[in-house]
């Protein structure tokens, strides 16, 4: 009975970190989506300056461990703008994810046959109009499977924001195990929660994939 009681207490305690993890992941994914799509557009359709900026962003950010980016954003940049640990961590994670997402969307943009852009321009659409109404709706659908993979990666990378003091699932598990000295139980609960979150995420994204599949 003692075991069950311990398990329930541990579970309830770590559960409070789930909302933090979900919050960090959602913010990071959204920020990354904005960065990713913008940078991919710059990379594929921009002038040579925009192309260079997007390429440099992608190369540098993907070369640096995410935890280092979180540290830099929280401790260097946040000196000028006062960010809470939650926002600093989430934005940093999003900034990092943006680089990976830009590669996903670059591939998707390039997979749309280039003749469509030429045709759109020929009937008098501006470049931006063409991207908005012809390229992007197809590219987003093409990007979905790879994007779903990135979503689960960001979910797991959300453990890193603890270095700036955000009490997400993993840190909660550490706190319990420091108190109860039962790390196996604490980390098993954490594992279970991550598993559930990942499964739900992939299911939702698969539904989107089916719903918005391209009929070419």
């Amino acid at each position, binding site marked *: 009975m003692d075991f069950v009681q311990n398990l329930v207490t541990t579970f309830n*305690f770590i559960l409070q970190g789930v909302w933090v993890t979900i919050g960090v992941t959602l913010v990071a994914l959204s920020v990354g989506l904005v960065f990713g799509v913008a940078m991919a557009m710059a990379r594929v359709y921009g002038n040579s300056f925009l192309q260079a900026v997007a390429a440099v962003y992608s190369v540098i950010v993907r070369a640096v461990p995410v935890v280092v980016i979180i540290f830099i954003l929280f401790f*260097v940049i*946040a000196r000028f703008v006062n960010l809470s640990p939650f926002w600093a961590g989430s934005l940093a994670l999003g900034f990092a994810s943006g680089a990976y997402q830009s590669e996903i969307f670059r591939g998707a943009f390039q997979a749309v046959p280039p003749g469509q852009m030429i045709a759109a321009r020929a009937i008098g659409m501006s470049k931006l109009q063409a991207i908005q109404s012809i390229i992007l709706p197809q590219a987003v659908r093409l990007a979905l499977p790879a994007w779903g993979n990135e979503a689960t990666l960001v979910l797991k990378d959300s453990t890193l924001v603890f270095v700036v003091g955000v009490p997400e699932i993993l840190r909660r598990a550490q706190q319990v195990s420091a108190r109860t000295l039962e790390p196996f139980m604490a980390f098993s609960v954490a594992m279970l929660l991550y598993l559930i979150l990942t499964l739900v995420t992939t299911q939702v994204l698969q539904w989107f994939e089916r719903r918005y599949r391209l009929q070419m």
Partner: protein
Amino acid sequence: MKKHIVMSMLLIAALLALSACTAVQPAAQQPGAAPAEGSGKLAQIKAAGKIVVGTSADYPPYESIDADGNFVGFDMDLIRAIGERLGVEVEIQDMPFDSLIAALQEGKLDAVIAAMQATAEREEKVDFTIPYRMTKDAFAAAQNSTLVMEKPEDAAGHSIGVQTGTVQERWVQENLVATGLTPADKVFSYERADQAALDVANGRIELLLMDAEPAMELAKQTGLKILLITESTAEGGKSIAIPKGASDLKAELDRIIQEMLEDGTIQRIQEANGLP
């Protein structure tokens, strides 16, 4: 592609230059800025009505989190009592021990209370109050260990676990490894002391060196035995870390701590948390 590489390099150089400038900034501020503004750290805290204190809540009985999510332990009770005497609210922020000093330097925290000792290296980065508690260290081993220790140097040659970034880790490095008494690959640095304790209990390492009181607590829970309690590996006592140059805050905290040592408040809080 070559252009990208050149631009990447330039960007990194710019970022480094930026961090170099900003790294100098707090140091440059400290001697003149506080008196010049007439509103030092203490005034800022009083104006805000709260003091933001960092800790690493995985170190019972000094600091941990109870089942309801409250910060508990000796340091936590102490800082709340200090906050009361300062007349401000205490906001506690949990962080990994290694992030605490950086967060304090960057102004994310007003103070750090984490059973931390004022070492020379740390004092280059931050200031410390007077110690609120003198410390001893303990060597712990598994229950079935046949080791006998009379002095800290008796640990020579045995595999030993310490917590990363602690004074104990440095003592081991300087007195056992640098002197050739213990091979470097027999020293294991853990992120948390309880992980080291579990490895001692499981027989993966022979010894654990850490603060005496949490060691006794850990020993009780994981079935270790304490081989030696010593003052010679410890340096002074536990202090509250505050930002470099916050002289008004230091003066006020020193005064409160001295007062609490004299009127028995600290003694009472220690006993309430099961500390000798």
